[in-house]
């Protein structure tokens, strides 16, 4: 691969135009989930993260666990979700979040090729740390799929540049010590880690995990280039469907646009 990948190119362009990046998350395979993705796309998302449900989601808190289980119970599989992604008519880049066994089972090359042919731009693999990521990242690179690396607050300084060097698209800056889910306030680690990352990389830095509302998104974006909105989006989807997602994404978008 030469130069920047298409996801990073696109996100840098938005960032450089002064826009804060908004990445809503949806659990793939929930009944009606594609409407949720469309609603997010229509209301100001820059990238949409689609979770491929897994039986043992160790990085996820109660809301996304419940959504994953519901999706699995309704018969969703990685293949069925990727098939729906292929036919999804949205302009916003889509990336998947999947646990490593979902990749390992079909094999690196095959899974990367499945993502490529579904039109997926990138992949976030929360249980695949830097040291284990080599074979997957190479396969993903070959197929034009950006592997979005995660960085955690526990990382010593020396580790961050190595993670950023391997990151494609953006760096996922984990906002707190803990699993996904809404919190009453933004953890101090969210801006601390984003600041440490910004000091060592020019790759867009997007904070996820524990960024729970528009106000916290604005707070995180005082340092970071953008935010992921996970449990807050999924909870609204499960309570009030695609309309709930559209309203919420629009609210966060507006706050980010005027907020800084």
């Amino acid at each position, binding site marked *: 691969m030469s130069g920047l990948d298409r996801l990073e190119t696109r996100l840098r362009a938005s960032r450089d135009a002064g826009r804060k990046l908004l990445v809503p998350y949806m659990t793939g395979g929930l009944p009606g989930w594609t409407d949720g993705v469309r609603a997010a796309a229509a209301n100001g998302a820059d990238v949409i993260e689609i979770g491929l449900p897994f*039986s043992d989601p160790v990085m996820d808190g109660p809301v996304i666990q419940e959504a994953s289980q519901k999706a699995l119970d309704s018969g969703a599989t990685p293949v069925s979700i990727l098939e729906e992604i292929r036919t999804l008519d949205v302009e916003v880049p889509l990336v998947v979040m999947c646990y490593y066994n979902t990749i390992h089972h079909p094999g690196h090359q095959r899974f990367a090729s499945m993502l490529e042919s579904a039109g997926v731009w990138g992949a976030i693999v929360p249980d695949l740390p830097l040291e284990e990521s080599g074979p997957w990242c190479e396969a993903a690179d070959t197929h034009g799929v950006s592997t979005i690396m995660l960085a955690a607050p526990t990382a010593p300084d020396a580790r961050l540049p190595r993670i950023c060097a391997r990151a494609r698209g953006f760096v996922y800056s984990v906002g707190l010590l803990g699993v996904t889910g809404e919190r009453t306030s933004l953890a101090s680690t969210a801006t601390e880690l984003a600041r440490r990352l910004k000091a060592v990389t020019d790759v867009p830095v997007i904070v996820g995990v524990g960024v729970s509302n528009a106000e916290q998104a604005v707070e995180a974006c005082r340092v970071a280039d953008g935010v992921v909105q996970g449990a807050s989006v999924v909870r609204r989807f499960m309570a009030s469907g695609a309309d709930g997602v559209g309203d919420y994404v629009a609210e966060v978008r507006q706050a980010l646009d005027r907020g800084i």
Partner: protein
Amino acid sequence: MSPTPSIMSQPSEAGRFGEFGGRFVPETLVPACQELEAAFTEAWADPLFRGELDAILKEYAGRPSILTECHQLGARLGIRLLLKREDLNHTGSHKINNVLGQTLLAKRMGKKRIVAETGAGQHGVASATAAALMGLECKVYMGAVDVERQALNVFRMKLLGAEVEAVHSGSRTLKDAVNEAMRDWVASVESTHYCLGSVMGPHPYPWMVREFHRVIGDEAFAQCQDRIGDVPDVVVACVGGGSNAIGIFSGFVDTRARLIGVEPAGGAAVGRGQPGVVHGMRSYLMQDEYGQVLEAHSVSAGLDYPGVGPEHSYLASIGRAEYPTVTDAEVIEAFQLMARTEGIIPALECAHAVAWITREAPKMQGQTILMNLSGRGDKDVGQMMEILG
């Protein structure tokens, strides 16, 4: 010339046993795993740490555990049957070996709190016990199904001052208890040590837990030399994650003894699984065509696990150990057989090993079989009362 290295030597730098093992954890936990690896490596080479652990194992846990010959059952089956009596350790199972090692290490690392997962409750009870002894806070995650079928152990843990949380997600058994313990650790990693209960999880756990259980194999090897002047023909243990099996195998892996790890038919990771990645390790795993982890089903809560420790996958892949299965019905039969013929009530987990020995005895006539009796069956009496009516 240097001696041939043991088949069970240290894993590679990347934590691999052959192509199994590794460290597939969220980024948040990587520094903690690295810190643990460094701390264990240093402690294990430190005679002071080793001396302190040996003293606690002797004076608190009651080691060495004895070797008992089953004269009646042996005569009935046409074999010579020796039991390594890990059931006689304090807290009633082999789990105490690992837990005392890990809690001593946790203290050395300055941790104030441990979290643990448990299936049958044996590791939970051992963890709660060691935490009480060492002055550590302790939280145990246990699947809601297991909380129900092992109520006595839940109460024991609470008596020992531990907090027990029932896990209602997924299959509500051991696999989900591991998930929840890992989620806790992700949030609490700075103050907390994850006291993992088997030879599984991310590197260095499979290696570290094996080393803490090596004492079983070392003692058994010496006791067999003493008693029969030889190694046994066959060494048998039950396998869930596989810690008691690894412990006893470690004493015999470089000898001529056959090594048998008995899995439950409903949780046969080696027998029915394919290589997969969950709970931080690459190992044999029961999974569906998309890589979703399947629920195990076994009468024994301690073996109700769809995966297996990576070193077992390695031993299976090179053909050094065999991993047959037995059914719940065979296990229930074997549980009663050992009670009646020897006056020993085995844990349901160990009854898997008894069941295999009973079934295969006709093919092993005259041979000496060493079985790891890794836990006592008192905890299973309530459940058996219901099963047997």
